[in-house]
């Protein structure tokens, strides 16, 4: 049976893994330094992470160059799927990351500004390479709006229909990040995760809000997510990846142990 995936996310700033508390705070310097990305990646690899996501939170030319170096070094030691996001705007940016050793690239604001980038990326590198990351915020009882630019800019788009459109254009996976839940450790937004997962025929990765082991189980069961992504709970040593997986296995969720 296909296993549900547990994915640590590493936010990289100036070659170091950092963690902001909530959306937008990183830019104001409210960051906690967590450590060297390669060392952390190797640690999570040893703990049995199913995949890793590296996110360039500087999204600058300098940040991208640093990220290429990070991915190259990680790919020499970790033989698992690697995804890179943050500041990827063109096919060339994608190519550079894939060549460095990434298996997938994650695009967000660039896809909103130019949806055709999804199609071009999928045609050139295959759908399996193209992840579309969506930052969604609840704006009404039945409505989630997509925000761009790290959750700062409203787009007027409804989250589920944007996810559908992205998949139609060739996205091979959707990362659904709840702006309301991100950094709160109060649990994932189950509702928007489930709606998205039921609406698209590609895997949906739930992101934002993981605080307890029960949160992880809920978003996989009730939220119908195919994978969970988390940062803080791994970085600050609250849980190891293997602890998460053992817990999920006890809840009869298929995981790779």
């Amino acid at each position, binding site marked *: 049976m*296909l296993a549900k995936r547990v994915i640590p996310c590493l936010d990289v700033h100036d070659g170091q893994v950092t963690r902001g508390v909530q959306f937008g705070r990183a830019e104001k310097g409210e960051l906690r330094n967590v450590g060297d990305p390669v060392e952390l990646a190797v640690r999570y690899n040893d703990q049995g992470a199913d995949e890793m996501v590296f996110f360039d939170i500087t999204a600058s030319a300098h940040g991208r160059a640093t990220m290429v170096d990070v991915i190259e070094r990680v790919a020499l030691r970790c033989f698992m799927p690697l995804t890179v996001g943050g500041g990827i705007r063109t096919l060339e940016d994608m190519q550079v990351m894939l060549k460095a050793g990434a298996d997938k690239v994650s695009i967000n604001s660039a896809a909103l500004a130019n949806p055709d980038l999804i199609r071009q990326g999928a045609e050139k590198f295959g759908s399996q390479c193209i992840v579309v990351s969506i930052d969604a915020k609840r704006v009404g009882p039945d409505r989630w709006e997509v925000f761009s630019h790290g959750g700062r800019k409203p787009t007027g788009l409804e989250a589920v229909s944007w996810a559908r459109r992205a998949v139609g254009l060739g996205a091979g996976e959707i990362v659904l990040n709840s702006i309301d839940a991100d950094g709160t450790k109060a649990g994932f937004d189950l509702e928007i995760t489930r709606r998205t997962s039921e609406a698209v025929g590609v895997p949906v990765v739930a992101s934002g809000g993981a605080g307890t082991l029960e949160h992880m189980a809920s978003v996989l069961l009730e939220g119908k997510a195919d994978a969970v992504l988390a940062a803080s709970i791994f970085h600050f040593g609250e849980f190891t990846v293997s602890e998460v997986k053992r817990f999920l296995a006890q809840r009869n969720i298929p995981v790779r142990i």
Partner: protein
Amino acid sequence: MIALIDYGAGNLHSVEKALRYLGADVRRVARPSELKEAQSVVLPGVGAFDDCIHALQKQELLEACREFIASGRPFLGICVGYQALFDRSEEFNSCAAGLGVFRGPVVKFSGRDGLKVPQIGWNQIEIDRSDCPIFRQIPSGSYVYFVHSFYPQPTDESIVACRTEYGETFASAIWKDNVYATQFHPEKSQKVGLQLLQNFVALSNN
């Protein structure tokens, strides 16, 4: 020397890194003549069947791979490199003819029971042929990493080395004589994948 066929496949670098990590003497090979001195060949692949076949054809590597296989030296196909061993694909508008080493079509997942296509992620292998050298020290039930929408249906069931279930049960690896092939990506399957590649490296050194 292990010749890694370089025709622009997306996972070329990952496969190369994994083989080097294991200490193998691996060389990227883009011309048929370079296969002559190889002890073994790895044919990587990810993406579309036709793209793979056309690229191989263009570099005259299709016939070179057939000849290499006929020479009896170890050959490993990965993902589309596995599918390429068959006659033909049912991929949309496919008209390319594969290596034709094995009979059978390459078909698409039905997506029944709401299963998502492509299959992306870790799934288990049930090993039919525990005597298969590349599965040495790999237990049945191990998880390996898959990214694919299509899979081959070998006419000759006896070549099926392991099976995986995803809505339907399919041949996730095959073995016949000197030819080994996996639908999953050993280069992305952590310890299990490295063990499989290590086993192949050992065969190459024999």
